[in-house]
């Protein structure tokens, strides 16, 4: 399989993630979009690992790391979103703007 296929796929995935992060109002959706971006990176890592035929499979190892970090991150992120919802009855991040001037 040529390298270009997974790269183009990852680029679409990443762009979808960026769109989601920037445009969605729902905090849960924003978190999911971040997952999309991370997974786009994972696709790249694995693709390049295969392409370069690395003996140490460091691409795959890093992908595993990213998955672990993403799990932790989404765990904390969802906890925060839950607390915000309990306090303010909303998960619309436009309304969560306490840290401003």
């Amino acid at each position: 399989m040529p390298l270009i296929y997974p790269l183009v796929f990852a680029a679409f995935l990443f762009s979808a993630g960026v769109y989601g992060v920037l445009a969605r109002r729902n905090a849960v959706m924003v978190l999911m979009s971040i997952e999309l971006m991370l997974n786009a990176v994972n696709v790249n890592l694995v693709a390049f690992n295969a392409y370069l035929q690395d003996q140490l499979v460091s691409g795959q190892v890093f992908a595993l790391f990213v998955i672990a970090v993403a799990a932790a991150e989404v765990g904390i992120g969802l906890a925060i979103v839950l607390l915000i919802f309990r306090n303010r009855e909303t998960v619309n991040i436009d309304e969560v703007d306490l840290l401003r001037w």
Partner: protein
Amino acid sequence: MEKLAWLVPALPLVAWAVLLLVGRRLPGGGAAVGILAVAVGWVISLAILFGVIGGADAYHVSTEWTPIGAGFEIPFGMTVDGLAAVLLVVVTTVSLLVQLYSVSYMRGDERYTFFFAKLSLFTAGMLIVVLADNLLLMLFGWEVMGVCSYFLIGHYWEDVANARAAVKAFLTTRVGDLGFMAGIFVFAWAARSFEIERIIEGVATGEISSTTVTLGAALLFCGAIGKSGQFPLHTWLPDAMAGPTPVSALIHAATMVAAGVFLVARMYPVFEASGSVLNEIGILASITMLIAALLALVQDDIKRVLAYSTVSQLAYMMAALSVGGYSAGIFHLFTHAFFKALLFLAAGAIIHAVHSNNMSEMGGLARAMPVTFGTFLVGALALAGIAPLAGFWSKDEILTDAWNAGFAGAGEAATSQSVAQIVFVTGMVTAFLTALYVGRMLWLTFGAAFRGQGHPHEADAAMLFPLVVLAVGAALAGFAGLGDNSIGTWIATEHLPAHGPATLNLGLIVVTTVVALTGLAIGTALYRRGLPEREYLERVPVVWKTLQRKFFLDDLYEQGIVRAVAGALAPATYWFDQRAVDGVVNGAGLGTRRLARGLRYVQSGQAQWYAAALFIGVVGLAVVVTQLIGG
């Protein structure tokens, strides 16, 4: 022994630190620390001087202090030659005796320990000047002395007049110091080094142009004018008498004020290369010695008489240097240190006894204070130049040099003959005036009947001991200048060969002795019966007023300089500081606040805006990086 010379200034410096830190808790207020430090230095100094007398070569050690590039370096080192050895002995001797004397004199003083700490620091500063092999180190010691002088004059700062005198002394000498600093930079620039030896080499080989030499020497001499109380900056020295008497003896008679003379002597080959500067020194010294001697005639305060006398005698040394009398000038510095320190310390004993500085409240003390009287008499006659006391020999050598340069045409210096003639004539007149005011001072203090309150009594042994030692010095120091192996040989250097034993001109000796005796006789005739109803000079109102107002110099400085500074310059700089300097500082703060007031809306709290900015930034960076590196 020369290798240990660094200990001489280092020990008082350590003593200063010890006194400042723990002095108050030491037994006896810590005075012993300062005395011990300088006593060890005194022993080393004597050993060095005897080495020099035995024919030891100059010892020079130097290390690089700070490299500043461009082939320029700041050295740090010392030169132990004959000149330094003589000065080391003078400084440590006087400092040791003054500190011994102060143990009793300053007893019960509120700032007793601090006083000794300052004396130690001062001694260290002076010794650094003496040993310095380069002008920057010398300037360092020079300023240490200046600040100690300031502190010590203002020792009794509770009295505002004393604090003002301290400020006056500090600022007036600072005027000269500016010139000194400029002179240092002129020579350092021209010789590419701060080292005195290199500068002298440069002048000798003609590497430094004669214009530069004249400019630099004149500027250096400004420093000497300030420090050594020469006209027109002499006005601070009489006011400096506000300090305790031991301070006057140490700083304002024997050592610090002689530093200016020492500076000229240390750089003498440079001064010798410039006739116009030597002429300038000769003229200024002549003016100084004359007006100071005249002013000494009308003072009531005994310390002020001695202060003006010091100014006048320092001018003698300068005059000697100006007519090529290198060894005569240093010889006079050497003898003067003994007899003037003696006179001040004896005056201190008198002041202690009668509780007044004024001679109008003294009189008849010869019977009450026989030892003080005896020692004071030795010092006073040495000052007046009566053979065979110290002052006679050195004063005579100076006048001989002036005569040779002015009239005999045998002068070796570049001074013009007419200047040497002026120096000789004023020197003679000053010798007469000196004897006159010495006679006046002696009779007003010790003669006739006591005019003050209470019953004066002799000082205690701790104060009398230094007096006796100094009296022996004042009587015998003159013999250091006689014979083949005399002071002139000790201080000779490669650039300043010894002239051999001083040639005593018999005719001149007779004339100076007659002049001195005449002065003393007139003083005796006028003041034998104590203070006259009206001072004799008071009968000539113009002269009296001029002398009382100190030739109007203080008025001139007060009305001219002080008023200009306080009236216009100070408000202008205040305005500049408040508006311009503070304006920049405050403006920076205010500008930041104004900017922040606008910029803070960027901080909207909208996380997605931040993310968008982040993405745009990353993309922008990526474009830049790929275009620059990939392109």
